[in-house]
């Protein structure tokens, strides 16, 4: 029982972590709350569906193509709709909502509202302590850890990472020091959207593809990010696993209330915020003037 809870919590958490890292990254660097983040994840799933089912491409290749394509779409959207209005924080929020709706509607037009699916990269399952885990889930778990390591290395070991971190700390000063702030933001956007697409590619074989699939993960992802502290990668990671575990606790302890898992996760988020308004690992607010 306890092992069940821990394993399914870890796997749930990995999914959220994958999504939350990208979301957190772009917020930390460019202060963009990208509501369309999970919409990119949806578009990536549709790309993979199209490539594998309509064109008969191998899933792995389809995945790579989808990630590339969605990153490109993300960059175009960013250049066209978000970059020009970055000064207005509220406007950016609305723009990303509108973007998400637009993408949802386009997918609805092309693929209708039918439930679709994509093939798993690996099929079959493994038994650990009598608990069955699909290989695809193990893959998600492994990939989440790898991605975190990758992003960490990118931030700490490369010049781009240095630029990203300094921009995240103080945009204006970074600009004054000769960094091309808008280029850094764009690169971060590319990485963030790419991560969303990647998450889509890994997670989606376990669930269903449909135009409204971005809503539920969006809310959980936001809860994770807020819980962990906006813009803090470590926070997102820890937050993801906390909420993942909380969800599986609900399922195992009150099976009649399995549908409440979302509500419980959100309540935990609010409780944490009551004690630490900046989230677990967020930077305490300075009085902004």
């Amino acid at each position, binding site marked *: 029982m306890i092992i069940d809870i821990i394993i399914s919590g870890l796997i749930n958490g990995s999914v959220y972590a994958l999504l939350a890292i990208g979301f957190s990254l772009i917020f930390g660097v460019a202060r963009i709350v990208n509501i369309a983040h999970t919409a990119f994840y949806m578009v990536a799933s549709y790309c993979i569906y199209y490539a594998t089912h309509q064109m008969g491409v191998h899933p792995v290749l389809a995945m790579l193509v989808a990630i590339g394509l969605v990153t490109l779409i993300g960059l175009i959207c960013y250049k066209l709709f978000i970059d020009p209005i970055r000064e207005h924080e509220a406007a950016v929020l609305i723009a990303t909502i509108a973007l998400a709706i637009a993408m949802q509607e386009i997918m609805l037009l092309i693929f209708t509202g039918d439930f679709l699916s994509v093939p798993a990269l690996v099929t079959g399952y493994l038994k650990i302590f009598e608990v069955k885990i699909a290989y695809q889930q193990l893959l998600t778990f492994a990939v989440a850890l790898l991605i975190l390591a990758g992003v960490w290395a990118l931030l700490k070991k490369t010049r781009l990472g240095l630029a990203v971190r300094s921009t995240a700390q103080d945009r204006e000063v970074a600009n004054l020091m000769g960094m091309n702030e808008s280029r850094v933001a764009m690169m971060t956007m590319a990485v963030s959207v790419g991560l969303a697409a990647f998450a889509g590619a890994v997670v989606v074989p376990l669930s*269903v593809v449909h135009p409204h699939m971005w809503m539920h993960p969006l809310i959980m992802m936001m809860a994770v990010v807020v819980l962990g502290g906006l813009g803090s990668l470590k926070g997102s990671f820890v937050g993801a696993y906390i909420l993942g575990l909380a969800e599986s606790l609900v399922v195992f302890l009150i099976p009649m209330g399995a549908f409440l898992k979302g509500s419980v996760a959100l309540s935990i988020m609010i409780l944490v915020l009551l004690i630490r308004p900046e989230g677990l690992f967020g930077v305490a607010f300075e009085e902004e003037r």
Partner: protein
Amino acid sequence: MKRFGFVLGVLLAVCLVMTIGSPAWGAKVIKIGVIGPMKFVQGKGHWNGATLAAEEINAKGGIQVGKKKMKIELVKADSNEFLSMTDATNAMELAITRHKVDFLVGGFRTEAVLAMQDIAMDYKKIFIGCGAAHPKLCTRVAQNYDRYKYWFRGTPFNSMYLARTCFIHMATVGAILKKMLNIPKVKVAIVAEKAMWVDPMVAAAKGFIPKMGMEVAGIWRPSAVATDVTAELSAIQRAGAHMIFTTFSSSVGITFARQAGELKIPAAQVGINVEAQKDGFWDATEGMGNYVMTMNTYARGVEYNELTAPFVDKYIKKFAEVPTYTADTYAAIIYTLAPTIEEAGTLDADKLVAVLENRECMVPSGKIRYTKDTEGRHLHDLKWGPGYLTSLGTQWQDGKLKGVWPNRWKASKDAPEITYKGIVPYKIAPWIIDKYKK
């Protein structure tokens, strides 16, 4: 700028003509509003079934109303009810007041249908519901007959009978498991999406399963749109269930079937899984939905009566898929509305109601008869049972949806055995056999 104003003016004029002009054509035809979520499978079913019916009737020259023949014109009303309640009610009002429809068929999401029902009743239009199963839609008729008498249920029969049919399926599969695998006491896990229409079924199942000589292993209620149920699945397996009683109407049905298949959970899925009724289910689960059994209305090659095969064949020929139950708008128009109008010889709703509620008619899925409640008040609900509507039990067997129930079914001890044409035996998933066969 001037040019733009002109174009705008023309556009507005066109819109005006389109809105005002359309009712003018409707003098000599019977207008039937088909209301449903047109962007989704359910709405497509509504529309496809209705178009098939309209084409057939119009090919014969129309419906005989008194002395003249009237053709049918369908009005498509996109209720968008999954996403917006206001859209649903607006579409209803639009269809009735602007397009001047005489009758309405369709509706799916109960919350929306309740609101749409009220509007249709305001205008005294006959509304045949083809999608929502909740009994409340019909108890309203009994409670306030004068207001709600224009509502009739077209499909499916109400959730009480849905539950009853499912229990019979469960007993059937339970008996097979017991016999083939020597399981002394079959354990059943109840997995139901969190929705109101399911609640009475879950309560009934909890009470009824022990009476059938089986044991309840636990109850799980995932959200109707859950994207991950592996936690539930491992809990179910831990509870040692041999059979899973499912009640899903939404996307969770696919997720559940797929993940259960992927993990080869050794328990047979029986019950209602609306997604599994569709042809797209096999692809949507990447073949992992094999051996899933669900209640269903139509299946390839299964015939309730002589009307079934022509309908199903025509439908498959035209739309390249098996009709789902929302496509019963076909039966609602061609077998329920049309003959009633011909019999009454009028389009007057009150007179039609009086004829309709006492009629009995054959439809492709059985026979329709409207019921009364225990106090003898009209419910306009559907009668269930052998000879009337029974529905089917269907199972996915290697990429094909086969009918597996009723297979030599006796409704009571001395009732005749019923087997519909085209029924095949139930198959147990090999991994279940491997797990329990000694």
